[in-house]
C-alpha cells in the first residue's frame, strides 16, 4: 500500500514540482506562498536531490535566476505572492516573448480576502496581460497535479506557465498518496540564439506573433481543456428549468460543488471546472453559448473567464452584478449566489457575530515596539513613512503614517522632504522605517536615490535578523544560504555607507536610553547645514525566531503602588503582556506573555513599573 500523508497545499505544490523534475526554484517569501520553497528544501534533503534552491533578494531576481536555468533546457520554478509578482512584472512580460526551453513555472499565490496582503489582485489577469497560460487549482491535490501539468505544458510549447493557487489552496491540508520522487536527469546546455534570447525591437514583433500562435495552440491542447465534472448532469431529462450551467475555476468551484450536492442539484446542473482559465479554447466558448441559456461564472477575484466569454445576455457573474466584485467568495457567499441563480429560496440567516475580533499587534517583547516608542519620543509630531512587514503594525502605536509597498517608505520620506522644501515650508521631522529583509529587497535603490537627490530624513532600519512575518526566512545578512552553507554576509551599515549616507549608527532598542540618543543625533544630522539622510539600525533579533540567540538579561517586571491605572503604557506602548484592569485600577503583567525585555520600565511616566529581579 502506498503511504497516505496529510499535506499542506504548498507542500503538495513542492511535491508536484519535484515530480515534474524541476532542478531549480528561486523565491522571495510572502504569505500565502512562503512554505513552498521550504517544502522543496526539506524534500531535497530527504531524497538527496541535486537542485539549486534560493531565497532571492526579491522577486525580480528570483524570476531571472530561474529563467536562466530554463534557458539551458532545465526545468525551473519561481515562487512568490501576488504582490511580489508586481516586482517581477518586468521580466515576466519579456520572458513571455522570448519563451523558455526547459519547463518554467511561475507560481504566484493570490490572497482573496485579503488575509495578509495589501491587495486582492488576481494574478490570472496578469497572466492574461503577459499572454501566458495560467492554471487555477481548487485543492491541494489538484495543485500538485497542476504543478506537474504546468511544467510539462511550458516545456512542450516553450512558454512560461503560471500556477495560481489561492490562500485556501496554499493553506488547506488534504490527505493524498505519496509516490517515489524521481531524480532529475537534465543537463544544462545553453544554445546561443541572440535573435531570440537578446532580440532587438524588430525581432520582438516576430516573437509577439509567435507568442500569439503558441497561445492559440495551447488553448486547443486537450491536457488543459475545460472539464465537465458532473457528467450525469447532461443525461436525458436533467436539463429542465431553462438550460443553466456553471463554469468556474479555483477553490470557489469546490465550495460550489459541495453546496450543489447538499441542495440535491449535483446531477442536475452541468458544472464545468477549468484547469486553465486562460487562454480558453474558442470551441468551448462557442459550445457553451449555443448549449445554455444561463451561464454562471464562479472565479476569484477578477472576471478572467468572464472577459473571454463576451455575451451580455447569457453570462451571469461579476460584470452583471451577480457575483461580488471584492472579497473572498466564502462558501456562504457562494451559497447565496447559487440560490439566487437557480431560483431557490435564500438560505436561513445565520446570527452574525457581535464580537469585533482581536486586532493584530506586535508580539510581547518585540524589539520593533521599543524602536517605535523611541521614534515617537525622539520625533514628536513627525511624519512617519512605513513599510511592509511585521513593523507595519507600528501603526497601532501611531508611528506608521503610510504603507504602500516594499521599499516605499524610503522613497516616500524623500518625497515628503522635497514637498516641504520646495514649498519653503517649515520642515516637520521625517522618520522612515523599514525592515532588514525589505531593505535588501527594494530599499537600497531607494536609499541611493534619496541621497543623490539631496533628501534629508532619518531612516530606521528595523533589523531583527530575519524575515519574521512570513516565517523566518534568512536575509542576506545571515551569512548562510538555504542549505546552511556559509556565503558572504552583507552588512546593512556598509551598504548604507556605500549608498552615500554619511551618518550611520547601530543600536539595540532594548538599550532604550542609548537608542533614543542615537535617534536624536540622527535627527540633528538630517537637519544640519551640511547634513543629509541619517540611518539608524535598530538591531535586536526577533523573539519568535528560534534560530537566534537570546542574549538579554531577562527581567522580572512588577507593578508597584505608584500605578494608578492611567493606562498610558497600555495605550502608548500596547504590549500584550501589559493588561489593563479598568479605570483607575493598577495594570497587571501577564507572565505567560512577558518576555522580560524591561522596556516598559522606561515607558511608564510614573515609575510604577519596576524590574525587580533577574533570571533566565
Amino acid at each position: 500500500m502506498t503511504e497516505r500523508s496529510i499535506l499542506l497545499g504548498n507542500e503538495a505544490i513542492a511535491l508536484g514540482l519535484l515530480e515534474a523534475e524541476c532542478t531549480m526554484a528561486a523565491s522571495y517569501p510572502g504569505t500565502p506562498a512562503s512554505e513552498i520553497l521550504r517544502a522543496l528544501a526539506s524534500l531535497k534533503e530527504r531524497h538527496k536531490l541535486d537542485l539549486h534552491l534560493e531565497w532571492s533578494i526579491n522577486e525580480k531576481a528570483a524570476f531571472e535566476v530561474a529563467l536562466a536555468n530554463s534557458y539551458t533546457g532545465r526545468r525551473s520554478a519561481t515562487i512568490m505572492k501576488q504582490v511580489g509578482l508586481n516586482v517581477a512584472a518586468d521580466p515576466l512580460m519579456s520572458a513571455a516573448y522570448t519563451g523558455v526551453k526547459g519547463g518554467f513555472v511561475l507560481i504566484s499565490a493570490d490572497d482573496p480576502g485579503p488575509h495578509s496582503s495589501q491587495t486582492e489582485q488576481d494574478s490570472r489577469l496578469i497572466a492574461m496581460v503577459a499572454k501566458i497560460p495560467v492554471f487555477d487549482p481548487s485543492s491541494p491535490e489538484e495543485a500538485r497535479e497542476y504543478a506537474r501539468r504546468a511544467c510539462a505544458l511550458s516545456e512542450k510549447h516553450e512558454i512560461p506557465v503560471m500556477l495560481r493557487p489561492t490562500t485556501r489552496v496554499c493553506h488547506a491540508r488534504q490527505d493524498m498518496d505519496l509516490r517515489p520522487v524521481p531524480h532529475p536527469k537534465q543537463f544544462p546546455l545553453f544554445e546561443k540564439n541572440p535573435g531570440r534570447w537578446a532580440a532587438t525591437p524588430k525581432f520582438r514583433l516576430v516573437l509577439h506573433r509567435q507568442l500569439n500562435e503558441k497561445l492559440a495552440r495551447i488553448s486547443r491542447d486537450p491536457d488543459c481543456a475545460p472539464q465537465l465534472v458532473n457528467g450525469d448532469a447532461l443525461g436525458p431529462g436533467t436539463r429542465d428549468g431553462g438550460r443553466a450551467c456553471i463554469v468556474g475555476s479555483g477553490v470557489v468551484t469546490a465550495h460550489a460543488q459541495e453546496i450543489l450536492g447538499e441542495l440535491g442539484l449535483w446531477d442536475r446542473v452541468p458544472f464545468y471546472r477549468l484547469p486553465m482559465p486562460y487562454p480558453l479554447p474558442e470551441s468551448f466558448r462557442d459550445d457553451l453559448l449555443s448549449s445554455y441559456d444561463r451561464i454562471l461564472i464562479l472565479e476569484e477575484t477578477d472576471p478572467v473567464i468572464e472577459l473571454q466569454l463576451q455575451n451580455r445576455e447569457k453570462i451571469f457573474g461579476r460584470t452583471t452584478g451577480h457575483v461580488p466584485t471584492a472579497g473572498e467568495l466564502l462558501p456562504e457567499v457562494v451559497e447565496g449566489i447559487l440560490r439566487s441563480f437557480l431560483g431557490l429560496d435564500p438560505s436561513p440567516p445565520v446570527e452574525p457575530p457581535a464580537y469585533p475580533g482581536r486586532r493584530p499587534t506586535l508580539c510581547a517583547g518585540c524589539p520593533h515596539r521599543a524602536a517605535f516608542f523611541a521614534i515617537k519620543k525622539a520625533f514628536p509630531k513627525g511624519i512617519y513613512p512605513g513599510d511592509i512587514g511585521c513593523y507595519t503594525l507600528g501603526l497601532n502605536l501611531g508611528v506608521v503614517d503610510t504603507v504602500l509597498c516594499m521599499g516605499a517608505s524610503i522613497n516616500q520620506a524623500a518625497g515628503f522632504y522635497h514637498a516641504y522644501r520646495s514649498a519653503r515650508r517649515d520642515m516637520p521631522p521625517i522618520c522612515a522605517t523599514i525592515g532588514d529583509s525589505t531593505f535588501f529587497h527594494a530599499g537600497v535603490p531607494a536609499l541611493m536615490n534619496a541621497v543623490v537627490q539631496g533628501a534629508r530624513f532619518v531612516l530606521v532600519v528595523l533589523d531583527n535578523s530575519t524575515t519574521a512575518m512570513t516565517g523566518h526566512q534568512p536575509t542576506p545578512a545571515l551569512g548562510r544560504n538555504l542549505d546552511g552553507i556559509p556565503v558572504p554576509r552583507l552588512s546593512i551599515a556598509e551598504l548604507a555607507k556605500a549608498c552615500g549616507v554619511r551618518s550611520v549608527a547601530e543600536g539595540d532598542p532594548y538599550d532604550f536610553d542609548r537608542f533614543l540618543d542615537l535617534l536624536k543625533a540622527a535627527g540633528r544630522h538630517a537637519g544640519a547645514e551640511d547634513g543629509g539622510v541619517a540611518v539608524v539600525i535598530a538591531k535586536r533579533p526577533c523573539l519568535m525566531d528560534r534560530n537566534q540567540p537570546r542574549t538579554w538579561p531577562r527581567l522580572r517586571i512588577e507593578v508597584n503602588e505608584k500605578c494608578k491605572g492611567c493606562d498610558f503604557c497600555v495605550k502608548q506602548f500596547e504590549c500584550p503582556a501589559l493588561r489593563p484592569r479598568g479605570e483607575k485600577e493598577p495594570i497587571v503583567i501577564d507572565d505567560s506573555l512577558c518576555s522580560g525585555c524591561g522596556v516598559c520600565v522606561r515607558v511608564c511616566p510614573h515609575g510604577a513599573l519596576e524590574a525587580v529581579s533577574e533570571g533566565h
Partner: protein
Amino acid sequence: MQQIIVSGIGGQGVLFVTKLLAQTAVDTGRSVLLSETHGMAQRGGNVISHLKVAPREQSGTSPVSPLVRPGHADVLLALHPDALAAHGFFLRPGGRAFCNASGTTAEGSLDASAIAGSLGSAVSANLVLLGFAAASGALFCDPAQLETTLARIGGKRTESSLAAFRAGLKAASAP
C-alpha cells in the same frame, strides 16, 4: 462527514489540535480536508482551523471545500473564552461546543487552563480541552485513537501532553 471548528488565539496550539484530529482521521481510514490560519496570527489575532472528516471513498458530493459554512459545524473547540464569541456562529443547531473558560458551569465548559496549570504545563490547555471533548463522544473518533496519535506525533513533550489529555478525559467524568 463531520465538520469541526477549532478556534483560539495565536500560541494556544490550535494548529496542533487540528493536526491531531486530522492525523487520527487518516490513521483510521478516513479522508480529511482542512484550512488553517497563517500569517498575522502569531501577533495576537484570532486563529481558526476548519476540519472536515469523511469516509475515504470519493463521490461527486464528498467534501471538496476546505471551509465550513456558518451554521454547519458539528463540533466547536474553543481554546479561549473569546473564541466562542468570535466563532460560535459556525455551529449548526444541535452542534456541540467545548470551551476553555473559568468561572462557569455551562455545559461544555471546562477550566482547561487551570487543569493544565496544576499539571505544571500551562501550554497544554488545548489537550485538556481535547480530552474533555473526546470523552463526550461528540467527535468522530474515540479517546484511545487520539491517544495513539498523540503518542506517535507528540515529539519531546509527549509525556506531559498525554497527561494533559488524560486529565481532560477525567474531568469529563468528574461530578
